[in-house]
């Protein structure tokens, strides 16, 4: 066991780093869907916006000022975009949930194309901030410092989101809205404001994840659909509207993406699909989902 761990330590760590990033990305998607049944297919495009913001600000030369500036700018863009998406889906509230998902798909196409027009077709690299751009020695192997830092940041964000949702009044409101929207409206809470807030916060997490993922994934055409798929798989496995589910799902998918690709390079895609199928057969509502969602 220890020999296996030593041989695959880097893959396991990579999986943790990917998992941390996926959690930040997926938790917003999960909460927006769990609360309002709006499947935001523009979530991957928001991630890409963050990645390009990082490439534009940090790409010239890595400095902490540029990196933190990119994080701040991406967060502001994410908040505004989330508010905008919330406003755009509002007129479709009386139509089917599919129409709302299709609307966000159209927005995703537009955003991805505009980014391609502005930044071109070539992939852009994002250097890690100074001090984190080197590597450290772990059991005799070199490992990029930035990825270790990313695992730490992901853990901090996971704890922060968990505390916010599980321990605060605002979190109680969010959980109540996930559980029973009509009852929350009946006791006098304006659903639309909760929706705007969660949409804005979830979108902000997506753009921030784009900046954080920049030093690993860079910014390139098509990255938006790749991360959207991973986030959707995380959300389906974990259960919609559950913070804990998003965390467990992200860690599982992170390991499958990393360890699976290292051990079974040809079968990694099948392993991903297999995990999804297994969870859906055994627990259609996801590992931590409470509502009978998947079985309509």
């Amino acid at each position, binding site marked *: 066991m220890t020999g296996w761990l030593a041989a695959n330590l880097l893959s396991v760590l990579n999986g943790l780093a990917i998992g941390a990033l996926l959690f930040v990305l997926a938790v917003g998607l999960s909460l927006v869907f769990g609360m309002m049944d709006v*499947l935001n297919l523009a979530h991957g495009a928001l991630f890409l916006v963050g990645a390009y913001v990082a490439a534009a600000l940090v790409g010239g030369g890595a400095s902490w000022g540029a990196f933190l500036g990119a994080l701040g700018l991406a967060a502001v863009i994410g908040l505004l975009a989330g508010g905008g998406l919330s406003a755009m889906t509002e007129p479709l509230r*009386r139509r089917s949930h*599919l129409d709302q998902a299709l609307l966000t798909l159209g927005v995703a196409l537009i955003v991805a194309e505009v980014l391609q027009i502005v930044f071109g077709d070539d992939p852009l690299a994002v250097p890690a901030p100074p001090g984190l751009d080197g590597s450290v020695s772990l059991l005799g192997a070199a490992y990029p410092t930035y990825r270790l830092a990313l695992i730490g940041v992901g853990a901090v964000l996971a704890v922060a989101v968990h505390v916010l949702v599980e321990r605060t009044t605002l979190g109680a409101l969010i959980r109540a809205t996930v559980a029973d929207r009509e009852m929350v409206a009946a006791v006098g809470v304006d659903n639309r404001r909760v929706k705007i807030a969660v949409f804005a916060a979830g979108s902000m997490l997506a753009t921030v994840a784009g900046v954080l993922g920049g030093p690993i994934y860079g910014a390139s055409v098509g990255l938006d659909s790749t991360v959207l798929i991973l986030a959707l798989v995380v*959300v*389906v496995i974990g259960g919609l509207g559950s913070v804990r589910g998003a965390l467990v799902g992200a860690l599982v998918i992170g390991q499958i993406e990393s360890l699976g690709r290292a051990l079974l390079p040809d079968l990694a895609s099948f392993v991903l699909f297999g995990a*999804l*199928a297994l969870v859906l057969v055994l627990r259609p509502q996801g590992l931590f989902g409470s509502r009978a969602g998947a079985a309509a």
Partner: protein
Amino acid sequence: MTEVSARTEEVHGAMDDPGTGSGPPPARPRWVVAVPVAAVVVVLAAVPLFLAPFATTTLTRLLVFGLLAVSLDLLVGVTGLPSLGHAAYFGAGAYAAGWVSIHLTAAIPVPLLVGAAVGGLAAAATGWVAVRSAGVYFLMLTLAIGEVLAQVAQSWDGVTGGANGLAGIPAARLGGESLTGAGFLYWYVLGVGLLAFTAVWLLARSPFGAALRGIRDNEPRMRAIGYPTTLYKYGAFVAAGTVAGAAGSLLAAQQRLVTPDDLGFTTAAIILLAVVIGGAGSLWGPVVGAAIVVLVRDALGPGLGGHGELVLGIVFVLVVYLLPRGAAGLTTLRPSRRRRT
């Protein structure tokens, strides 16, 4: 609609809405349908005699994607299952037909049958997971399945040619003659397309199709009166995958090249766009939608610096707001006959 009935709609499969088509059209004299249909077929068949080869090739592509849109409409409009992974079966059929053409024979109808069979098998192998869900969940699952299959195409170098795609597909052969002329290829694609369209149309009209529409409108009720609804949805999924695979074999014959892009997310999104723009459930509407979408992307795109998809995205957003029933809804002057439960 109140919040409470919105919840009811969700329980009923989220498909109980006027945007996804209606039941059988109101009774009209037979010739009102037959004459325009015959006219369209005659015009389509005569077109290569009057067009330049390039325009004929563009029209061939429109037909290929039109057939793909019809197969997707069987899922989206008739059964109420919005798929974002349908391009996977299109691509599977295209790769299979291309591989057979290169390594075995390009004689019609072998690549077509192999493409349809592989499309159907791929749908059968992956669809059983997807049809356990409905509505937006189905959308998510098909998206994930489609992306997995696209990654397979990307990484299975030995068979698919990897990221470069499967190149050097020979022209389709009929009775020892290669169909190299744009017009002959067009007639081949048109013939297969008309046959497949008729098959899907008959399927949608059959008792099986009626049961699928029942599932779209109210799945719990269909289950309650004894229909094995999951099995019916699975059947529709495999049938749609088979037709998509046939369309894929036509793509291989037309492009003579298959790339991972052909089964990727963008193709899947664009073809769903075509169904929505054209009007889901009408079968002919999605053909018009596919024509619009492919024209904007391939014909208008180069003039826009290759960014036809930007125009498509904007059109898509406008259609969702302004035309909930798509272009096919424009022909229905009176309000849709909404089946409430």
